[in-house]
């Protein structure tokens, strides 16, 4: 009996020591440029984030093989934030205070970005957020390489209304991303003379949609905007297909992030339109020309390193672009000093990436994009009926955000714009 207890005690103490040991044996840094990366390798968002992590690694590997930058190699310091906002905060501090990184990349959900933004601002830490999101972040320390609503919706909603009709119904996740995106949709529909025949916001925890489907059928819209987020809400597509809803759908989130068209059994996403700034199929759908070549080249290099990647999504292109933009700016600044790099980034720096040129807007710190309209058909085959080149992130600049002139640390929305 006694012995049993002692064994237990020993095994427990050993496990604590094991953890401590692991902590202490972490590699010590040499003379490198340190890139901190905070991404959700595990947890709810990992599905869309893992290709993104691999894209960072690809970019770093390529740059290091080409001799690094300013004679230094790039070094990644990465933590798994477990799709947990508190972990983002813990590790953002760790990157800044302990690892003393030169720049931080990462964040998937808007909440995780907002969780670490105050920490970045407090420490004047240069930070790249490389995700499509609801837009509006006007922050001196933050650069965004993902697409924003003015890029995804001004194209998508207008096109859909022209093709299918002016009655639009929105279902959206009931939190910031969904609400703000829906606001954009509402505004664009109104500007184009359309009508919102319905709008429903759905908590993230809801996975059953029978009632929502009936409500949509009652309203008889021409276009259904589905701004749904997360695995639970993604169940909507299967359920609407099973119920035979049959209304053309449009969104800014699916396909380009979590490749639902590959994961779901057809015809769950039948007749869905998405605006993305990149997806893996670009070079397969577009048979020739610059977009074909760039994408083909990118995918080949990516797959050489990660042959088993299930899908190369638009956020991996954004991540790849971000590292390259940063390196270009460091070269231009001739230093990793964060203020100098920021100023270099504000000179209208650009990078010719997997989907064409991404140019940083000095006013808003957001990137311009090529926007592809992706159509998913009955068999989940992908078509690209329309390409918009060089779409600017115009809204923040027009609304009065000019970070090259005046520091700011806020997030704005159309209904809550910067004070002029």
């Amino acid at each position: 009996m006694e012995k049993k207890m002692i064994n237990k005690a020993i095994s427990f103490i050993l496990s604590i020591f094991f953890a401590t040991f692991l902590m202490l044996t972490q590699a010590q840094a040499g003379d490198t440029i340190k890139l901190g990366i905070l991404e959700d390798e595990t947890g709810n968002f990992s599905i869309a984030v893992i290709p993104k992590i691999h894209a960072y690694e690809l970019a770093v590997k390529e740059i290091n093989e080409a001799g690094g930058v300013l004679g230094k190699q790039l070094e990644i310091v990465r933590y798994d934030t477990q799709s947990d906002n508190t972990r983002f905060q813990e590790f953002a501090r760790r990157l800044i205070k302990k690892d003393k990184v030169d720049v931080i990349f990462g964040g998937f959900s808007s909440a995780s970005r907002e969780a670490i933004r105050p920490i970045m601002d407090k420490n004047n830490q240069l930070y790249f957020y490389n995700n499509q999101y609801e837009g509006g972040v006007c922050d001196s320390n933050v650069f965004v390489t993902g697409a924003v609503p003015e890029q995804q919706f001004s194209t998508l909603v207008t096109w859909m209304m022209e093709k299918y009709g002016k009655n639009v119904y929105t279902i959206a996740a009931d939190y910031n991303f969904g609400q703000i995106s829906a606001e954009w949709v509402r505004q664009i529909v109104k500007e184009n003379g359309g009508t919102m025949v319905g709008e429903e916001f759905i908590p993230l925890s809801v996975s059953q949609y029978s009632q929502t489907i009936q409500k949509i059928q009652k309203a008889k819209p021409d276009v259904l905007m589905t701004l749904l987020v997360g695995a639970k809400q993604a169940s909507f597509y299967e359920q609407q297909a099973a119920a035979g809803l049959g209304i053309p759908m449009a969104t800014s989130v699916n396909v380009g992030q979590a490749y639902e068209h590959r994961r779901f059994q057809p015809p769950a996403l039948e007749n869905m339109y998405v605006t993305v700034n990149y997806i893996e199929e670009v070079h397969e759908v577009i048979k020739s020309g610059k977009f074909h070549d760039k994408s083909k080249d990118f995918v080949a290099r990516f797959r050489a390193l990660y042959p088993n990647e299930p899908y190369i999504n638009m956020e991996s292109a954004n991540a790849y672009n971000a590292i390259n933009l940063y390196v270009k700016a460091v070269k231009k600044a001739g230093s990793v000093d964060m203020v100098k790099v920021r100023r270099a980034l504000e000179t209208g720096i650009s990078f010719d990436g997997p989907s064409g040129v991404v140019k940083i807007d000095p006013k808003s710190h957001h990137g311009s994009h090529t926007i592809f309209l992706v159509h998913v058909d009955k068999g989940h085959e992908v078509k690209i009926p329309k390409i918009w080149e060089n779409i600017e992130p115009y809204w923040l600049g027009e609304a009065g955000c000019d970070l090259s002139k005046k520091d700011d640390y806020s997030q704005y929305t159309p209904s809550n714009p910067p004070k002029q």
Partner: protein
Amino acid sequence: MVLLFNIIFQVSDAISFLLLSAIGLAVIFGMMRIINLAHGEFITVGAYGTVVTAKMGLPLPMAMACGVLVTIIFGFILERLIIRYIYGRPLDSVVATWGISLIVSQSFLIIFGPSIEGLKSPLGSFQMGDYSFSEYRILLIFISFLILVLLYFLFMKSRFGTLARATIEKPITSSALGVDVQKVYTITFCIGAGLAGLTGALYIPTMTCVPSLGQAFIVSAFVSVVTAGASPFIGLVPAAAFLGSFQTGITFFYHATIGLIGLLFAVIMIIRFLPSGFSGLIKKGK
């Protein structure tokens, strides 16, 4: 007519979701007082078992049976390794089952990746007035009530049911009458696990197949079982019926968020004013 059918469909759809969410938990928590926070993961196991075997080429009903079987085996192993040591410690069961749920969902992520290709809802859809309906969902409604009836017979009319109810009411007296109490517990737990697996198997064709899919059921499951009261098989149907119609009604007049909040409020009020749950109400009525 169409409207009436529509209302009946919506309400019974919501009720059957609550019923199927709760059914495995009703056995494990309702009868054995194990607060099983890993209930969602049991559902996940059933769902993955179904999807994986279906992808290997088994027809869907067979694959679903496999999913259930896998969950039963999974439940059996857990009972042997962990659960049997925490009978009679309902509050500690929170911690152990929480641990189990972390292990399972993360293991699924490691083994199967963040998502696997799901299944398509079988059967088709049909039109009625402005509305169209999924035939599979209507089948689900019938299946959920059928399972409940079968379960009623299993626990109320079968020989095993007699043993199980006796053991759960008075374990010591039962053992003194020759009932192998430990075995009854193990089997009951496996039935609960199997039912959770069945829920996963039945719902997975309508859902995204991710390791966290079981979490979608857990809140509905707990609120239904607790408001059902001490005799879950008597109380579950009225509890689910009340909560389901209440939520559907509020969602209909307002929207889904208010519907969810309303559901939780209803639970709070039911526990406050009906402390013995719906089964207590029914017994009183008798």
